[in-house]
């Protein structure tokens, strides 16, 4: 039988997983959130303090959304008392989420990088049309993005959900996954802060971040489609 993890264990699992796992898998989304949701004036770097504050607020909303999705999954797992059926249903949903999120990252990064390729940047051309098509299709608030991205396929999250089953009960499962989500936050907020201080206001590093987002978006797209 599976050895029950105490509530504190879920916090530790999130903390360890945040640094050991989420840093690799979720950092493109953290970078995306800062770039997507920080007001243009703040993002231009004229007021670094305001920019940092705006980025932090966006990241906190994103984190709250993500944790709420985890809480819902934990409550479901705890209530059902059996994760196998839940996991099977989730797998299809999470692959679809991976495709949508990957496509959004790829399109967003291509749009951001388009001005490097004058032939592609002309208004009315392909990217102009893509930009028009994307408008309003990426959630307008980081909270909604967090709610959605909480559904991304993640082995660590699966592990936490599996362990939450042993807690027995929806409330216990929800609480366990809330602590797990909280545990993952320091690593991702740390990445966001480092990005804000080192990369987002430096042209070359910002470009590299966009290329990274593009590559990871392609990877999420591929892994969602390939299953």
């Amino acid at each position, binding site marked *: *039988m599976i*050895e029950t993890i105490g509530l504190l264990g879920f916090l530790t699992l999130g903390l*360890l997983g945040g640094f*050991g796992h989420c840093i690799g898998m979720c950092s493109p989304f953290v970078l995306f959130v800062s770039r997507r949701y920080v007001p243009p004036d703040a993002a231009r770097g004229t007021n670094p303090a305001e920019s940092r504050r705006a980025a932090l607020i966006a990241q906190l909303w994103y984190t709250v959304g993500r944790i709420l999705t985890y809480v819902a999954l934990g409550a479901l797992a705890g209530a059902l008392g059996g994760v196998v059926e839940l996991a099977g249903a989730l797998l299809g949903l999470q692959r679809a989420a991976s495709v949508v999120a990957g496509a959004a990252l790829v399109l967003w990064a291509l749009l951001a990088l388009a001005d490097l390729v004058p032939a592609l940047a002309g208004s009315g051309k392909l990217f102009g049309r893509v930009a028009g098509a994307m408008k309003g299709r990426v959630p307008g608030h980081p909270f909604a993005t967090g709610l959605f991205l909480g559904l991304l396929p993640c*082995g660590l999250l699966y592990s936490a959900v599996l*362990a939450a089953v042993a807690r027995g009960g929806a409330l216990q499962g929800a609480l366990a996954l809330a602590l797990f989500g909280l545990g993952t936050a320091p690593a991702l907020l*740390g990445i966001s802060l*480092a990005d804000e201080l080192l990369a987002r206001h430096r042209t070359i590093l910002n470009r590299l971040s966009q290329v990274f987002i593009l590559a990871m978006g392609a990877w999420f797209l591929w*892994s969602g489609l390939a*299953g």
Partner: protein
Amino acid sequence: MKPRETLLGLLVLALVLGGVWWARGRSHAGSPVTAESAAKAAAPGGTAEASIPDVTLADQTVDLGDVRLSLSVAPRPILAFARSRFRARAEAAGAPVALENGRVSFEMTMPMGDHRYTLVPGTEGWQEAEVVLPLCGSGKRRWFATLEGTVAGKPRTARFQLDLTPPSGPPAP
């Protein structure tokens, strides 16, 4: 940008990287065979994984000298998100011996949290646990199982490996 912000950014980045180092170290702590595997992998032509018995297709036994530890899995293929029955048994001089405080834990190269199962008495001298393992989003399928227990008053450990099959994966070979 001010040098002060750059320094602060580098400090934050160093803290994050320190966290990564800490987390990676913690997630593989307490697994004595991991250190052995790492040493083998570092050796020329390292065969760390090849030397670990693979239970993906067949039951396996590790000979510890005076004691042999066996691990059996059913059904096969070993599906992710499905209940698999892992059974363990200890033998000495060709006869089953008691495996006390038996447990089996699972890990993979990506930190995937605690997957520890206590073995309970089964049939024919086997001890067993019903195990559910998740898929890693990175696409990695290989897991490592560490079987631990006490035989004749001495702690024993054996390590095995296995490949998970995705739920929609190919039929059993």
